């Protein structure tokens, strides 16, 4: 797939635009004084979108073999589980 003869250029600059805008939005959301829960939810979602953009386009997961996405994605399941347990186990 990723060979020298690839015709179409990939949307690297639009993705950059998105990342830049999202960063600005994040800083904005953070200073908006929203309610804690909503704020955290929004910020985490924005960060997740940004991270996915980097992974999908800059790290080519969108164009590469699926197995690479599996390798990169599987650990996230573990992250979620570990986090969940630690949240339930917080003292006090």
């Amino acid at each position, binding site marked *: 797939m990723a060979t020298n003869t690839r015709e179409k250029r990939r949307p690297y600059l639009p993705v950059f635009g998105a990342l830049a805008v999202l960063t600005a939005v994040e800083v904005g959301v953070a200073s908006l004084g929203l309610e804690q829960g909503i704020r955290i939810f929004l910020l985490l979602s924005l960060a997740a979108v940004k991270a996915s953009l980097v992974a999908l386009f800059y790290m080519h997961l969108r164009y590469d073999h699926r197995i690479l996405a599996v390798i990169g994605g*599987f*650990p996230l399941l*573990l992250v979620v*589980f*570990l986090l969940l*347990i*630690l949240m*339930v*186990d917080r*003292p006090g």
Partner: protein
Amino acid sequence: MHSAEGELSFWRKYVFSTDHKVIGKQFLFSSLFFFIVGGLLALLIRTQLAWPWEEIPVVGPLIYGEESGNILLPERYPALVTMHGTIMIFFFIIPILSGAFGNFLIPLMIGAKDMAFPRVNMISYWVMVPAFLVMVASFFVEGGTAAAGWTSYVPLSARPDMIPGSGLGQTLWIVSLLLVGTSSTMGAINYVTTIVTLRAKGMQMFRLPLTIWALFITAILVLLATPVLTSGLLLLLLDRTIGTHFFLPDGGGQVLLWQHLFWFYSHPAVYIMILPAMGMASDIISCFARKPLFGYRPMVFSIMGIAGLGFIVWGHHMFQSGMNPVLGITFMTSTMMIALPSAIKTFNWLATLWRGQLHLTAPMLNALAFVSTFVIGGLSGIYSAATPVDIFIHDTYWIVGHIHYVLFGGSLFGVFAAIQYWFPKMFGRTMSDRWGKVHFALTFVTFNCVFFPMFILGERGMPRRLADPYNYNFLASLQPLNQFMTVSAYALALSQIILFANFFVSLYRGRAAVANPWLANTLEWTTSSPPPLENFHTAPVVHRGPYEYSSPEVSEDWLPQDRVLGGAAAD
């Protein structure tokens, strides 16, 4: 490395070799060395437990020295236990399974010339060496070695003022384990890449021998679990060096956080310590039953099941740790369920024997001992998985019994089997089967005499890591039983001399081995013993699964994976 073998200097050939077979042997010899070290430490532990605070004739003055009055000092006992556990786990059982057999067998069994990254492979051994040196050095520093248990629970391991070994010794322990982790991670990346990308033509994933499946899944466990230990160790190191308080409550830290991070690694790690042995035992049992392995696919899926579930059960080590008891229910349920894949494996091993033609060679006997003792170890784990029962048996000798039944009875019998099974391929000579059987019989009997009584001790409530249990009235009557175990442990240790003698004598004097002494099917047996530099004279092509024993297609009772049958290759 297209130069002929002869041109390589001594250094490139034996020391900084990139040949997976040499690296495997380097791991083999260093881990066997540490087996002896860890075992001798165990004997000191056992001696103390049988005759607490008494001077050991001859040996005592040598080890403990004048200034301690030739006897064990109370602060040294935790250090002994810590080092015994650490060395056995990190320097013996993990390196011998993944390092020695993983390295030696993966390219040979998948029909590759070498690992995907031979140089990384070499480095992964040479990162282990400083780890060894640092850990050994820690015996000689002020305060002695780390003494907070192989689990190094904080705050004991984070506060140098709490126990002598928590000084420089603990720091060196951390540094050493960081190196071990780096080495295993490098190895794991290499193994996974090799198994996925370098399989011989025709070697589909579902034609891989179970040894390879097990090593493959193990490598994935290592890859994903080890970095979490690394991060935990680094935080601990920072607490100890630059004064952070991640794990120190006085500064706002959390004690249980360490346990979560540690067990998030170390529970998967216990499967890192058993899966390769399970895989190797499967191959050995099928070979000496001369019968296809029963349920190949269920066997593969149960390895995956163990690995997957292995990531969500770590909390069973923390049932009584003050962790939120609601989590106890979650972890108890998942822990119970993890017995299921192990059960499937056990039943399939038995079914493999059913209507077989059993050749009871030394490797086979050890593999069968693996099955029978692993079952005891596994079943004893069910008691601790049962949270209410664990209230009583947690941190008692029940757990110590469990540890040794799974690790010695399981992994180590697997290792004994594997050493004797693959020795001809590794060194081109054969070990004595008769002495192998003598070693087996003595080890099997003495092993049970040492470790079965631990369940009795545990059931009486004898806590572990206790230098002198007889302080307690309710334990005073257990001293004779402990003495019996200690004497058995001496016998167990002496029995190992037979193995070592057999090993080293055969290395130089053993009968020359043919290419396929066991008439086995897997690819490593199709090349000469020992294999040439790039393993195969011609690249093998695989036509069938690894367990075609007693196939009706041929008159012999084995059918190698690469044999071409009749005119058309059965592919």
